[in-house]
């Protein structure tokens, strides 16, 4: 039975896949493949192993397709499969990631360098000493350039795996926080901590880039 939550697009896609439609398969691989690879990288050591995990996960997806009931979106369901395959593989590699601790991997991490605020003994303690500039002061052609996007892309790439996975799923792919918690077995709080750390770092990279080339 198909669930009521299932978006119409998912239902059609599943039907097409079950009917053996190659175009539909290529579409889902193109759509979800890169994210699956990134999820796999959270649990295994190398890119090569991550690619094997993704291959294995697709077999799991195909073999489980008849049982897909649409209680979650197809995307969440696929992402959960790859996460489970990757976890198993990671454990076999002796590299199990204690996920409950992932939110606390940087307990002292601050969103902003404390030196940018007035020190505790100052009358304006805790207020900006070196505030961020308004986006409105940045020339529009610079702000909206491909280069700006490239800076953001690179900053995301450089994040620790769990932060990278969370920010990509949330901000690039547009998953809800519930979906991300479901895929990664995270608590709502841990999901938000990871998102906070990730967004804070990427914002800083953006700010630094925008400051370059300004007098």
């Amino acid at each position, binding site marked *: 039975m198909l669930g009521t939550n299932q978006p119409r697009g998912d239902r059609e896609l599943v039907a097409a896949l079950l009917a053996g439609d190659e175009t539909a398969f290529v579409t889902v691989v*193109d759509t979800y493949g890169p994210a699956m690879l990134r999820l796999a990288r959270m649990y295994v050591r190398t890119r090569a192993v991550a690619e094997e995990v993704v291959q294995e996960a697709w077999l799991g997806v195909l073999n489980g397709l008849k049982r897909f009931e649409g209680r979650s979106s197809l995307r969440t369901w696929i992402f959960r499969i790859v996460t489970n395959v990757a976890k198993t593989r990671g454990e076999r590699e002796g590299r199990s990631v204690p996920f409950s601790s992932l939110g606390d991997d940087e307990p002292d991490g601050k*969103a902003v360098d*404390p030196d940018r*605020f007035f020190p505790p003994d100052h009358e304006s303690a*805790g207020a900006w000493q070196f505030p*961020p500039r*308004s986006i409105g002061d940045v020339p529009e052609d610079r702000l909206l350039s491909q280069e700006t996007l490239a800076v*953001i892309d690179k900053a995301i790439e450089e994040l620790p795996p769990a932060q990278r996975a969370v920010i990509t799923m949330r901000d690039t792919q547009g998953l809800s926080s519930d979906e991300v918690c479901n895929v990664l077995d995270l608590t709502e709080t841990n999901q938000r901590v990871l998102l*906070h750390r990730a967004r*804070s770092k990427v914002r800083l990279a953006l700010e630094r880039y925008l400051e370059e080339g300004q007098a």
Partner: protein
Amino acid sequence: MAKGLACKELVELITDYLEGMLPRRLRKRVEKHLAACDGCTGYVEQMRFMIEAAGRLTEESLPEPMKAELLHAFQDWRAG
């Protein structure tokens, strides 16, 4: 700067704020602070811009040999 909430504290609340997860009273304090603080307003603008820009990123696609292998697996599955 609004009384009570320091800029330094506000930047740590910003994700909860944007996620709509702050308790009402704290949300009001954040909003009041933002209305009076250019630095934090700039910070939130940059954050919102970054989030919006991240939504425009296109993802690197899978390597071609891998896609070809996956298609093979699909054909096998369909045949089997």
